[in-house]
């Protein structure tokens, strides 16, 4: 059976929860067991919707001692002393073995342009730390990909309606990776694998908004080779995390 890392999950209770959706470690483990998911990359709702530093620490505390969860911190640039300097932030990530980050430029009200995010993103790129962002959070992704050719960007929940645009961008820019939740236009993944390569797709569910059983079934049933499925399900993201240099 193919092993899966679900690369896109959020822990914690949102302000407006939907009844029955996962919030806790044990909620997630029940679903992961049922769907056949070995590990999940998780960020925390408090870091997304409230205070980055507190939410990132709560995440570490909640998943402590459980090797099925891979922590993901949410970062943002600031000229003030509210956050850490990028290099100091990376060293704190090293301490907690946090090997990937997520940015919310639209929700957290910052620009990805070099004047504001250059120092942060270039520091992450230097350490080969993959940067996750939701498709709806990024304006002018092409410029971002051009501005930071050494950074690895993983676009989450890209949306099936934009499949043509995402695929064309991925053909052009080698530093763009697509997470598969809602990248579900009919037979697009086999075409993407031919045009771009399975190396650039990463399986994720977007829980709690999305479904792990749907996400893994989409990969399992797609008409591509077993080797390609293995890359999308596990190997691509596992390799990326292993390549991080602290």
């Amino acid at each position, binding site marked *: *059976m*193919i092993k899966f890392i679900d690369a896109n999950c959020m822990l914690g209770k949102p302000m407006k929860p*939907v*009844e*029955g*959706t*996962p919030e806790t470690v044990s909620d997630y483990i*029940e*679903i992961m067991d*049922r*769907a*056949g998911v070995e590990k999940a990359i998780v960020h925390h709702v408090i870091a997304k919707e409230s205070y980055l530093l507190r939410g990132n620490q709560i995440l570490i505390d909640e998943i402590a001692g459980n090797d099925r969860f891979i922590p993901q911190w949410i970062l943002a640039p600031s000229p003030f002393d509210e956050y850490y300097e990028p290099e100091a932030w990376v060293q704190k990530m090293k301490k907690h073995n946090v090997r990937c980050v997520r940015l919310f430029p639209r929700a957290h009200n910052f620009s990805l342009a070099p004047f504001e995010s250059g120092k942060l993103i270039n520091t992450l790129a230097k350490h080969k730390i993959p940067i996750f962002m939701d498709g709806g959070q990024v304006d002018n992704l092409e410029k971002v990909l051009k501005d930071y050719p050494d950074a690895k960007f993983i676009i989450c*929940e890209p949306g*099936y*309606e*934009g*499949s*043509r645009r995402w695929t064309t961008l991925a053909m052009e820019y080698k530093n763009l990776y697509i997470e598969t*939740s*809602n990248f*579900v*236009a*009919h*037979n*697009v993944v086999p*075409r993407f694998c031919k045009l771009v390569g399975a190396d650039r797709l990463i399986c994720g*569910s*977007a*829980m*709690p*908004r*999305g*479904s*792990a*059983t*749907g*996400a*893994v*079934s*989409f*990969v*399992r*049933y*797609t*008409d591509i080779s077993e080797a390609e*499925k293995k890359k999308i399900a596990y190997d691509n993201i596992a390799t990326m995390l292993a390549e991080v240099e602290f």
Partner: protein
Amino acid sequence: MRAKALEGLALDDVFIFDVHGHADGDPRLPMLDADNLGLISSMDRTGINGCCLSSIAAMTSNPKLGNDYVAKLAKEHPGRLYGYVVPTPYDLDYDVESYFTPSSGMLGFKIHASYQKTFISDPRYYPAYELANKLKLPVLIHSWQGTEVNQVAEMAAKFKDANFIIAHSAVLPYRDSCISVCRKYDNLYVDTAISHTTEDAIPWVVNNLGADKVLFGTDMCFFDCRQNVGKVALANISDADKIKIFGENAKQLFKL
């Protein structure tokens, strides 16, 4: 069922009927392989036995062109592809009844009022609802908002011998209004078609409405069917409920 789904094998030990399929294309997104071969290939890959299609062209531009295409697919692939007739509010002389000949494979109506820039309870749809009522046909209705759900309920109350299927709304986060109207009317059903929704969407509907009123739908080829097959097969509900949702309910409703 679960073991096969975890291996990505076709679910060939359960009858699966997709009540919500589409042929043709949509300029806004790639509907790749949305023809007979593409549809049947995806059905074979996952174990879907039959799929009832409506034409996007019939909903968005030319009903006759689209309905004739779906009727052709249904005729050429009996037992695999079936069709919905899409009525139009803009040509009241358009003869929809002629599609429902014996063994045509045309099983009911599909209404997409927002595509057709009107509302579900538009009286210009009444000839179709009346025919569905007379022939006891299923009517699948695109429904994304509470107001649309309420309009379907209004039609279900008016045309009691037709069976109405509310598409999408039961598996969206704001599902409560859909479930309450389905509890009220015996001839109201829901489908599972959605591109992206929560893990518990299907168990929640089963727990709050009952599996007897839930029909398996994918929206293929508007998007892929594969994730929806897995969501049912691996859902946190009983195998008996999965069997009903996958096809047993549709067998009765569509007289398969």
